[in-house]
């Protein structure tokens, strides 16, 4: 049985008499400890799927099961302990007037977990931030440092599943490399399951075992990593994304043969 099982999920937004069908009948399943990628253009519904899992989007049809059980609405504390999300923009996702210490210790306070002092220190160590950052504010940190804080915050409750919504697209290439390396290390150390959204096929390829290509709210094609690297996609759209991927401009000869 798969850890995350999404069946025929539909999300419909209604505003000002308009109806936007952001996700239409998408099904996917993610195995435990797998890293699963969602790729597509903006408006393809990839982030909406993550938000739907968290109960942040109006689900109009289908089912989301985690560990075989339907999710309660509202999601509740047990959900927060098993699933956490890292957002795209580390400038917007951290409270500007809370210190890093407060940001990191709040989930512990909500869940009544003792020992918050040691846990906050350990969380900073885990994401490679000096302990002296603990009483700083987000504006005193760089983008990469903030994203490390956001990852540390997501891991405070020791969830098994991490939902990553474009975690590095706001970062410089060299900082992106550091954050991706950090995520890979944490996944191995803690046996995490990732669902990662990105528009960058090269990032998805680097991080994920399988990837679902989406367009206009629908699933287009699911690809295993080898099929992506070997350009064995069967749909025109997946092919066009692959061809437009910037890393293809760097020429060949650096990747492994095959």
């Amino acid at each position, binding site marked *: 049985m798969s850890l995350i099982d999404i069946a025929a999920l539909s999300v419909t937004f209604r505003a000002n008499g308009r109806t936007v069908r952001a996700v239409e009948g998408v099904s996917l399943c993610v195995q435990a400890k797998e890293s699963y990628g969602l790729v597509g253009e903006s408006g393809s519904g990839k982030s909406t799927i993550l938000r739907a899992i968290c109960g942040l989007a109006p689900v109009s049809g289908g089912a989301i099961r985690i560990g075989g059980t339907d999710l309660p609405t509202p999601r509740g504390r047990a959900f927060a302990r098993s699933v956490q999300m890292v957002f795209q923009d580390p400038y917007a996702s951290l409270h500007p007037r809370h210190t890093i210490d407060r940001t990191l210790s709040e989930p512990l306070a909500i869940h009544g977990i003792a020992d918050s002092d040691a846990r906050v220190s350990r969380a900073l160590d885990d994401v490679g931030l000096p302990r002296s950052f603990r009483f700083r504010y987000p504006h005193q940190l760089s983008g990469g440092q903030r994203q490390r804080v956001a990852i540390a915050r997501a891991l405070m409750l020791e969830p098994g599943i991490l939902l990553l919504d474009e975690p590095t697209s706001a970062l410089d290439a060299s900082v992106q490399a550091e954050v991706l390396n950090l995520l890979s290390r944490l996944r191995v150390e803690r046996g995490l399951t990732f669902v990662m959204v990105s528009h960058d096929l*090269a990032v998805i*390829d680097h*991080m994920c075992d399988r990837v679902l290509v989406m367009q206009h709210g629908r699933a287009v094609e699911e690809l295993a990593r080898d099929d992506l690297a070997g350009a064995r996609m069967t749909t025109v759209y997946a092919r*066009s994304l692959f061809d437009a991927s910037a890393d293809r401009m*760097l020429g060949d000869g650096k990747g*492994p043969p095959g």
Partner: protein
Amino acid sequence: MSLLRVKNLRVTFETENGPVQAVRGVSFSLGRERLGIVGESGSGKTMTGRALLRLIRPPGRIEVDAMVFDGQDVATASERQMRALRGRRIAMVMQDPKFSLNPVMTVGAQLTEGLRQRDRLGRADARARAVAALQAVQIRDVDRVMAAFPHELSGGMGQRVMIAMMLIPEPDLLIADEPTSALDVTVQAEVLSILDRLVRDRGMGLIFISHDLRLVARFCDRVLVMYKGRIVEELAAADLMAARHPYTRGLLNCLPRIGGPRGPLPGLDRTGAWAQ
């Protein structure tokens, strides 16, 4: 004759801890071509772009030996002359539509404001021009976008609105500061081809500021690589893969690739003498 010539540009900010030089002696010249400026955040690439329009406010300070645009001395031009230059002759597409569009005006009102005020167009004519500009940047749902406020648009839409806005006065030089960072690869390709067409058909000069080395290499004719306010390497875009400088090489190597190895990505080694 070159469209723009810059010699020894320096941008300095006075801070409590003494002056900080954001740009430290940048020189280049630009014809009617696509020039890429790449570097990480903090490398001074955005400040270089802003300094060309003299858009740096105190306590920031611009010093330059020579800065000449189309025969006109920009370094000593009056504010009045600069206003005539900005937008109409040299336009700039800013990085973030969230902060660069007016949050309390509809997109339609923002797009037509310049046409109505500057070009004295009537309401219907201005609207027609604005609609055409939006269509030129591949916006399909034009009526909705015209009536929308910036917060109702996605990042990619907002970015395209800004590009449309900057292209309406048909400038001679466009400074595009990360114009496609918020866009999807396929939309990015469309926007780049729009910019490309403008450079080719209208002989517009383009300064393309980006952190994405791969994109710049694909799109530009020439690339300046900046680090800590200096140009560390200048090369033809086609030769990027043969770059010599350790910083340029480091930037290239830290990017993941489709089908590449899955081990940790190499970080950037900043211990060399060049990094001081």
